[in-house]
């Protein structure tokens, strides 16, 4: 099934009377660099393909920031460098709250594909906004820019390895689907080997996601709530979301 992007909302609306107020806004940032983007594949069990001129994009990550603001989608090149950002606002309250997941699964079981070109006048260009998730992803992007042409300084590696960067992005974005109240503001850093550390801090506790530079070592989550602390090894999105949810609600 091929449809145009600006009909997605209408298409979805037509499928259900219970999903009202459907609104889809799509925008691209640095869109000239993007050729092909694929969205919705996992989360909505559907896909959106956006064709633009430029280099090919083979990897994508989708994320939802909050019920009110809708999801943001961020894109990366196969090498892991930051390419662009798109924003889609979809107000599916019932979907987000997972009240009626069976209905949603049925509604979204059909794949949706859309195409459009970079210079469509109705495309709204966005500036990144400062929510915890976009701030964190911006920080991750900045890590990749650190040092310019230099690879390292007296402390160590200036930029994360591709493995660490991609692992971090995947964990952050996959976990975002599972968070009840979204992310807290986090702080990302490159370690001396090119691994990534992300720390979330509250006075009542803290979480650290530690992603080694290479896949030879597994990522882990350090947690600390008062006198209770420890390491949750083999970090994955489920574990990360669980710890962030706990930190958020403590």
């Amino acid at each position, binding site marked *: 099934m091929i449809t145009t992007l600006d009909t997605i909302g209408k298409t979805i609306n037509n499928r259900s009377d219970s999903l009202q107020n459907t609104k889809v806004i799509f925008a691209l940032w640095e869109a000239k660099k993007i050729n092909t983007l694929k969205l919705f594949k996992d989360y909505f069990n559907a896909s959106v393909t956006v064709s633009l001129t430029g280099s090919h994009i083979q990897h994508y990550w989708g994320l939802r920031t909050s019920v009110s603001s809708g999801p943001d989608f961020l894109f990366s090149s196969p090498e892991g460098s930051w390419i662009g950002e798109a924003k889609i606002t979809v107000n599916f309250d019932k979907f987000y709250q997972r009240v009626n997941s069976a209905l949603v699964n049925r509604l979204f079981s059909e794949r949706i594909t859309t195409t459009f070109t970079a210079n469509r006048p109705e495309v709204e260009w966005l500036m990144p906004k400062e929510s915890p998730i976009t701030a964190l992803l911006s920080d991750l992007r900045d890590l990749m820019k650190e*040092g310019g042409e230099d690879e390292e300084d007296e402390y160590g590696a200036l930029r994360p390895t591709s493995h660490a960067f991609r692992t971090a992005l995947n964990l952050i974005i996959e976990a975002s689907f599972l968070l009840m109240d979204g992310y807290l503001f986090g*702080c*990302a850093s490159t370690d001396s080997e090119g691994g990534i550390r992300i*720390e979330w801090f509250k006075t009542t506790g803290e979480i650290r996601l530690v992603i080694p530079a290479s896949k030879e070592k597994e990522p882990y989550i350090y947690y600390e709530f008062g006198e209770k602390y420890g390491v949750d090894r083999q970090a994955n999105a489920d574990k990360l979301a669980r710890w962030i949810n706990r930190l958020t609600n403590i």
Partner: protein
Amino acid sequence: MTDTPLPPSEAVFPPLPCSTIVLRALLRAGHFDKHNNRVTAAAFVRRSKEKGLDSKGLSVDLAEKWTLDEYRGSFNRCYGIATLHVGYIRDEEMDVIQDAPRHGNITGVPYSEDDEVKAERLAGILANMARPVWSPPAA
């Protein structure tokens, strides 16, 4: 005994008084959490054991021997400077051992490869006691 003076790196210095203030350079942007205005634990994680980095501990410098301008200028990239109180470090079963006229090392923090739980725990304790005294002006 020897008549030849030891080089500074091998000289033995007396224990630092508990009142000593030491400086820790924040060498990555993520070593300072701008959202919470605090130093992160990342600033106190020992670097690669395999490469023999931080073999003596976490590098610090004696605050009374440096000006902040001189100190930050001694690094290629410096994203902030934090101070720590030697007495408080000792309260947490760590220590600061001076190994040069202006330099010392925080000891007692294991490498993550050896004990990641303790390494993280102590890194957090040090981060909590670190007071940021300089950060670059916002761009």
